[in-house]
């Protein structure tokens, strides 16, 4: 096949996955998808290797590959096949690779009776049933996190399985929104399939399949060459911790090995799985490891299965990073994934100090709230870690997530809540020559008689670390202010029944600092002081500030 056709098909695959994402977002019903874009779309080779994925949510990207492969395996085991006009659905984390909220759909694309590709999408549904509105938190086993959908055909030969849809609707808190999102997802698959079919009609099905192979080989070659060009070989270890509901810590340990144009992340030494949602299924572990490696090796490198071929991820079964059913896993996806990035970065920093930033806040900070007939879910920004290249960004989503915030006006229109604050959190940065980004404060009052509030976060007792003399950032702080004035400091993972007038205040951590804070440019310290991003007291204590706006002390 000629070079040009290959390049054209490669470009087209990326373009198709983008277009699928646009359709999904434009037609979805839940603010989590329509406003926050918590979804991802992909084109895969017929055998399940990921060819192209729109850059949406990192945790979806790595796990999509694992998920599709597993789901197809399950289907074959049942003696079934995906025929033209079928759509497979599953949200079983042990198959789909993230958590129950992420519903994975796969549609085969046929051209002249042969399978030429798969298109797939994953979207975070705001509620999939389970113990708490929003379905994340509080569970001791998977079944408490919501409805488990094994790989089944939602659409068979073009006909939507109405009975299955009724079962799904009956098991979630907001069935209308659930169905709206589900139809949006189906529509995005339909558009993706149509576009791939057009490609097949133009170039031929066999050419398309051959192109997928070439694209994957090419990316693998690209990745291996880039890894060799790093000019380092060896093994480096690092560890960090995640927090349980009672505040006790569990260890995540990694050994990263670079050799012969490949990288391996081995999590031997990580603590055993727990009866809490903090376990991360292997799909999440793979996604987070590959994300962290890519940011350091080459952020611009193409992402597909060819990249995964050059990267090996191993986590011993029965541990936090590769649990066995029926361990609950909802927060592994959002929280533990962030810690995996932290440990991989920490290990790689020893090998490639100029390429690795200090820890970002290390949490997605999940806030869920729901009552009769409503449920809302969001994740809250925090501070980015500083790097040798400059300050971390303030109030931004870091590493494994890049969802948008939900506009306050939208939330107040659609839910019985009143926001009282959404601002940067002063003094929450990790001090350094380059400082970490600030976390945020997000606070709201409940306006309904009764609702269930769940928070799931991290870094309540540990802190996002600094590098090269940069300091750690202060931890997260969650407060529940009752209508009668009582204030409770919530643990990082908590569920409470709340009522009218109660106020929840979430303060997210900042990012770690880089370099000695006393070497920070005095102009920058002054600017932060004037902008009330840091207090005078903190400037004096952490940055050797003595009131003079002139250059750094020598």
């Amino acid at each position, binding site marked *: 096949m*000629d*070079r*040009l056709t*290959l*390049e*054209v098909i490669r*470009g087209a695959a990326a*373009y198709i996955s983008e277009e699928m994402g646009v*359709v999904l977002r*434009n*037609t*979805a*019903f839940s603010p989590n998808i*329509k*406003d926050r874009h918590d979804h991802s779309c992909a084109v895969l080779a017929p055998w399940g290797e990921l060819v192209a994925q729109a*850059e949406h949510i*990192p945790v979806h990207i790595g796990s999509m590959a694992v998920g599709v492969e597993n789901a197809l395996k399950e289907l074959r085991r049942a003696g079934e096949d995906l025929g033209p006009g079928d759509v497979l659905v599953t949200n079983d984390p042990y198959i789909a690779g993230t958590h129950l909220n992420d519903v994975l759909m796969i549609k085969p694309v046929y051209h002249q009776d042969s399978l030429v590709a798969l298109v797939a999408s994953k979207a975070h549904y705001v509620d999939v049933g389970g113990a708490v509105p929003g379905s994340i938190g509080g569970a001791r086993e998977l079944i408490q996190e919501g409805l488990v959908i094994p790989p089944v055909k939602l659409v068979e030969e073009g006909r939507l399985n109405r009975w299955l849809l009724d079962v799904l609707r009956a098991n979630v808190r907001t069935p*209308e*929104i659930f169905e*709206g999102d589900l139809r949006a997802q*189906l*529509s995005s698959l339909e*558009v993706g399939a149509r576009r791939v079919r057009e490609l097949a009609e133009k170039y031929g099905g066999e050419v398309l399949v051959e192109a997928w192979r070439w694209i994957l080989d*090419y990316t693998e*070659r*690209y990745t291996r*060459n*880039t890894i060799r060009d790093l000019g380092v070989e060896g093994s480096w270890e690092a560890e960090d911790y995640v927090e349980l509901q009672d505040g006790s810590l569990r260890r995540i340990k990694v050994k990263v090995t670079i050799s012969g144009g490949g990288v391996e992340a081995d999590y031997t030494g990580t603590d055993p799985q727990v009866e809490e949602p903090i376990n991360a299924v292997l799909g999440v572990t793979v996604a987070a490891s590959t994300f962290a490696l*890519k*940011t350091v090796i080459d*952020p*611009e490198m*193409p992402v597909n299965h060819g990249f995964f071929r050059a990267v090996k991820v191993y986590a011993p079964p029965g541990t936090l990073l590769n649990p066995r059913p029926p361990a609950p896993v909802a927060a592994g996806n959002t929280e533990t994934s962030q810690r995996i990035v932290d440990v991989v970065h920490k290990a790689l920093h020893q090998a490639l100090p100029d390429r690795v930033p200090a820890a970002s806040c290390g949490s997605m900070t999940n806030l869920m709230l729901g009552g009769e007939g409503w449920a809302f879910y969001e994740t809250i*920004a925090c501070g980015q870690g500083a*790097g040798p290249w*400059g300050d971390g*960004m303030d*109030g*931004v989503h*870091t590493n494994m997530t890049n*969802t*948008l*915030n939900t*506009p*306050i*006006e*939208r939330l*107040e*229109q659609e839910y019985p809540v009143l*926001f*009282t*604050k*959404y*601002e*940067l959190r002063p003094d929450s940065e990790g001090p350094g020559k380059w400082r970490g980004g600030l976390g945020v404060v997000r*606070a709201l009052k409940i306006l309904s008689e009764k609702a269930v509030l769940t928070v799931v976060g991290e870094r309540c007792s540990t802190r996002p670390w600094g590098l090269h003399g940069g300091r750690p950032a202060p931890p997260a702080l969650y407060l529940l202010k009752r209508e009668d004035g009582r204030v409770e400091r919530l643990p990082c993972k908590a569920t409470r029944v709340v009522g009218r007038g109660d106020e929840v205040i979430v303060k997210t951590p900042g990012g770690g600092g880089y370099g000695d804070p006393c070497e920070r440019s005095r102009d920058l310290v002054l600017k932060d002081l*004037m*902008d*009330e*991003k840091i207090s005078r007291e903190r400037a004096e204590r952490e940055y050797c500030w003595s009131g003079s706006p002139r250059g750094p002390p020598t």
Partner: protein
Amino acid sequence: MVRLGVDVGGTFTDFVAYDPRIGKVYSWKSPTTPLRPWEGVLEGIRRGGVDLGQVEVLVHATTLGTNLFLGQVGLEVPGAALITNEGFRDVIEIGRQNRPSLYNPRVRRPPPLIPRRWRIGVKGRILSTGDELEPLDVESVRRWASRLCGEGVRVFVVSFLHSYVNPSHERLAASIVREECPEAVVVLGSEVDPQPLEYERTSTAVVNALLHPTLAAYLERLQDGLRRLGFRGVLLVMQSNGGLSGVEVALRMPAAFIESGPAAGAVGVAYLSMLLGVNRALGFDMGGTTAKASSIIEGEPLTVGSFEVGGKVHMGRPVPGSGYPVRYPHIDLAEVSAGGGTIAWVDPGGALRLGPISAGADPGPACYGKGGSDPTVTDANLVLGRLPTVLAGGLKLSVELAWKALREKVAGPLGMDVYEAALAVVGLANNLMARALRLVSVERGLDPREFTLFAFGGAGPLHAVEIAEELGVGRVVVPPYAGVFSALGLLFSDYRHSLHAPINRRASELSPGDLEQIFQDLEKRADKMLEAEGVPGERRVFLRYVEARYEGQAYTLRIPYPGTPEAAARAFEEAHRSRYGYTHRSPIVLALARLEAIGRVEKPRLRPPTGVEAHTSKREVLFREGWFEAEVVKRESFPKGYTSRGPMVIEAEDTTILVPPRKAVRVGGLGEVVIEVG
């Protein structure tokens, strides 16, 4: 009387003048002076030898980036402050909390336009229903306004939560600010953009407020300079919606001017397509560094409701979070890094890549012989025999240098021969551009096979037919003055104002009278604007649109308003089905009423070609099908009604048109070259 168009770009300022007495269009370029852009404009006018006393209308557009405009223009940016709700002063800094690059921690968001110390939170709160929860703390507004005014702040943005439903707090605060600081510019979120979503609305207000003084000062200096050179005509400003506006009105929405340049090409296509009776046109503009695609339906370019000022583009799509959002109609352009100067290279995985780096004007493509050693799209075209070896203006192109660059940087590493490499580079460029055209057609639910492709820009007509084949487009039109057609679009533009009012109610609950009232109110406002610009009543045209969605969705589809809410709902369902393939049972909400108010202006008249006999020679050209001896014709020599067949290369002063073998060509009555692709 002469009409003059001026487009200030990053490197060059383009001028185009039309003199109706002799029916001729003149165009020329002169360097942009980024620090003092008005000087470049005045100098360029002098250089072009235009007698400003004869100029009746001067139309001005710019593609200067906002950062350039704000940061480098030698005009002082006054201090600006934001007054907003207590507890929410960081809304414009946090934005939508996303980062522009997923993987690269070094890529940062653009810094907030108003520093935190000048973002003030005051007590007072309106609910989503429009009810007041807490009265505005007027004393606090007064204190801050007086203090900030004392510190030199001269621009105030007032933006409160839910002001789109109840603007009373904003209006009250604004009146206090005006009392305390009479000389200040005060901009309200509810006036600039009365729609929900606090970040986007506030950002729209902030961007416009900040640009206001700079733009006002710039236009004032320009007008002074023009007057000194004897200009007594009208200065008009192009906007991102493709319309003209007087200076006064333009100052209400300065961001629309800052991003106006690229719109002109689409406007030119809109006008020409109507003259030619073409209902569906794709605009394709390829220059030195980028190619731009647009869709035009029945003489109206498609628009999007918002854009990010200073934002980045990836694969033709804007990168969210890379710029400052502004909600104002913007001609829907997909831009890709594929121009004549775009560099081809081989990446570490052994794939052929194109761009985004461009050789620019200096050193330019390798064949310019100015020291460039990287192969560009122009080099590939030259090697294929598709370009003349001497460009109009006398620039000699070296086939040898082009050959060498292609061999060393592409053919060698990929193990192919140079001709094959050149075909691959051109093919890749064509594919990128075809993708941009798909973005503005297929992705909008439009079938490109029903369109005619209008190709212009220095390089567009060279690639157009092959791209048309890729898209299944049946016909290509190369307009007269193709090389400067984008600038010419400035002279084809009408006055245009985009107004909107919120509806936010179910279609089933609305009566035709409700909407009639809303539209009439908008038309009254538009009438006043056009009146002020001196557009006579019979030249005013109002186009009514509604934006609709299913209850529960966030994104709306825009449809021409068919006269009743019920018909609008049906039209929406049809649009939803054609775009997304299905419909819902949910109620349909009419979210927004939009009015496009147009004031028609006189356009330059395009004359038939005046050649007597086509002047031809022969050259070997490599097409995808192989080598052919192509006829080479000078465009200027075409007589009216000329017809022929490819393989053919048509050389004009400002562009080159490639006609592949067997394709039929004819020259139309306006000098347009029409190629039947089949």
